């Protein structure tokens, strides 16, 4: 099975207090970058689907990771090659601001070239929290899609049985390949993913795998191609315009009220919540 995983780097969410806004733009210098966690889960899922859990080193397919960004976003791609992805593509966007729709259209062109059996993506990026690329891509490709997957089982690499968590239980959907699937956190639980080769009893360690040192060295030799955004889509103008950013207001100090009556009054008249 050949799997394409789009990957975004995001400013380290733990450093959110460092984010600055200048003239309606986010200042990104000095931020530490991290792969979007849901995309990391997607890569982990792709690796699990293309190997036999007990013999993780023998690959049974190909995992191609792709990112959109400037040259230094290649670090994120190399990191994924270090954890086991086979090949990487960077769509060069310079520092231009793009939106999910541009990404989806460019990905469509890339998918038509690469012809993967499956596009696996994170359910959303934790910076903008838009959560749209996967769905848009499926629409543009006319492929079936399953979103927020918590478990995936391969049925002979022809179809996937995808478990989605819903209120009160899990829905199982069968999607025929090729398809687009987006993944949620539970996908990296020990028994969430089964490739055609994975023994039924196999359990992975919880979470995303670490890049072993030897694999980091090997990743240097893995192919990483650069593609121009203009070669994938003639129209790279974003549909979404970001007018302004503002930081959430700092929390204001609380006040002491004398009694419940005053509390209720103020909740009604000032906070207007009751």
């Amino acid at each position: 099975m050949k799997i394409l995983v789009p990957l975004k780097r995001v400013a380290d969410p733990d450093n959110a207090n460092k984010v600055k806004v200048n003239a309606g733009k986010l200042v990104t210098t000095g931020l530490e970058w991290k792969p979007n966690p849901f995309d990391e889960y997607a890569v982990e899922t792709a690796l699990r689907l293309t190997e036999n859990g007990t013999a993780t080193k023998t690959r049974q397919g190909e995992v191609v990771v792709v990112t959109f960004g400037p040259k230094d976003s290649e670090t994120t791609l190399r990191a994924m090659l270090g954890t086991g992805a086979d090949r990487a593509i960077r769509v060069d966007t310079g520092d231009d601001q793009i939106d999910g729709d541009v990404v989806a259209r460019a990905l469509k062109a890339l998918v038509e070239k690469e012809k993967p059996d499956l596009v696996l993506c994170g359910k959303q990026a934790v910076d903008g929290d838009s959560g749209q690329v996967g769905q848009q891509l499926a629409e543009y490709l006319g492929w079936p899609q399953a979103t927020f997957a918590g478990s995936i089982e391969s049925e002979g690499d022809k179809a996937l049985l995808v478990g989605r968590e819903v209120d009160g239980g899990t829905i199982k959907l069968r999607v025929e390949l090729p398809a687009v699937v987006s993944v949620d956190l539970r996908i990296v639980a020990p028994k969430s993913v089964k490739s055609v080769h994975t023994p039924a009893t196999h359990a992975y360690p919880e979470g995303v795998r670490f890049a072993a040192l030897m694999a980091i060295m090997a990743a240097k030799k893995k192919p990483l191609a650069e593609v121009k955004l203009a070669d994938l889509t003639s129209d790279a103008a974003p549909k979404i315009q970001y007018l302004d950013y503002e930081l959430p207001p700092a929390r204001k100090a609380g006040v002491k009220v004398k009694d419940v009556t005053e509390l209720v009054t103020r909740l009604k008249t000032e906070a207007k919540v009751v």
Partner: protein
Amino acid sequence: MSMLLSRRDLSFLLYEWLDVESLTKRERFSLHSRETFDAVLSTCERIATERFAPHAKKSDEEEPKLVDDVVVLPREVKPALAAFAEAGLVTAGMGAEVGGMQLPMAVEKAGFAYFLAANVGTASYPLLTIGAANLLLAYGSEEQIERYVTPMTTGHTFGTMCLSEEHAGSSVGDISTRAVPSPSGDRYRLFGSKMWISGGDHELSENIVHLVLAKVPGGPPGTKGISLFAVPKWIEGAGGARVRNDVSVVGLNHKMGYRGTVNALLAFGDGKHTIDGEAGAVGELVGELHGGMKAMFHMMNEARITVGLGAAALGSTAFLHSLAYARSRPQGRKLGERDATTPQVPIVAHADVKRMLLAQKAYAEGAIALGLYCANLVDEARTADTEEARDEAKRLLEILTPIAKSWPSQHCLEGTSLAIQVHGGYGYTRDYPVERMYRDNRLNPIHEGTHGIQAMDLLGRKVPMQGGRALFDLAARMRATIARALAVRDEGSQRLAGALEAMVARLGEVTAKVLGAGDPEKILANAAVYLEATGHVVLAWTWLELALVAGKNMGRAEDSDFYRGKLAACRYFFAYELPKVGPMLALVESLDTTTVTMKDAWF
């Protein structure tokens, strides 16, 4: 942001200050690039955060127990160590011939610092194993490397170092463990007991190889008669069977901190597990007969730098915890704010709290810098282009080792104490991790040579060595930094350079005077004060180095908060710490003999 170490700081130290990227021009490191260094650091950060840190509290609360002769540890320890080994971290700094990744030592140690910060109790096992493997690589025969190092590299065998005995700790020359050669002479039988052995017994690995100092009867007395032996817990018997060697646990020590590291009193050759019907632990000589101290120092020198770095890593994580607390704890109002209805400010707004945070920052970040500087010297000593440069690096390493071990052990312990102070009463409870960090850090001035022993090593051995050459080398490096600072045309740099220059000159003067005192008792009476004063001068120099880099790079980068923080910490060190050196050196210079003439009975 990691609560273990600041990745931004590590990048600053490795790339902006030490320029480890330039090492990739050298043969040994030629396969590397910044990208591989960064990837390794990320792997270390993740394994430390996800597999080591989560059980630090549990390992502290459930100290190792001996149940039916088996050491029981929390179940999280073993998989954490397996992840460490599977990632290839045991051999990260070793040569390709043993499957190593040939990382520069500064990068390897920076990565390892994450584990020391996350959970020093669990990190000790690989610390000891890596040290033991490096010793064997330097002194072992080819067969010994194959037999012991190979399984260490994959995490199947762990190592220990067995020097101390109940009656012989600081005074290693007085050990009484004996090693008796077998009639054929190729094996030895060891008899005696070893106290305080970290990782002395456990079920975490298939085998444990103890590196044991012992005396072969008939040898010279004292340290000159000590040899080194590899004594595995399990040896190979007839037909490859695993046979239990005659090493057994007599008891476990119940420690104040560092509890995740099992610490045992071991009996060698007490007949509990006889081999071929006879008592005596079977061991192999490593290196030369009576050459044990030299070989063991290979491991000890490495361990001393790592102990210093461990103290710094604990200081760092305690600092980050107390910083986060100070930012979130509202208490009191700014001076001059009379209106009691205004909201309270977070305590980080108070000058005295900032003093405690600055002190921690100056101690911890300075100590990490010093540790990585020393690690970098190890690479210089090994791979610098000229013999001259390699020799200079070796001398610098010799003189800096007691400082790199002791200074962080003393001051980052104080740092962890300040971290408790910042937390107020909450810091004194077990609901917050800083009291554990303090207890863990309290070990560092004791093991791997106590503070007092390091002091004597510095003033009694390292300074006078080769006519004082190492100290001259060190002073020359400091003067070069001072010259660079003087060339920066701002008042601040000039002032700092001037202050350091004066102290370097004083240190030289006082050193000459003390060493000229003749009587060793007089010379060494205040060695500990000398160690602390020299340490402070070294750290002031380190901070000046860091401030110069910060000043240079501040202009072109936008994360100026980071660089301003460095400059502020440097200023703090020069304003609050460096002035302490004057009185310390004055005391040393006075050759005061209060401690020498004090009589036991007068206490």
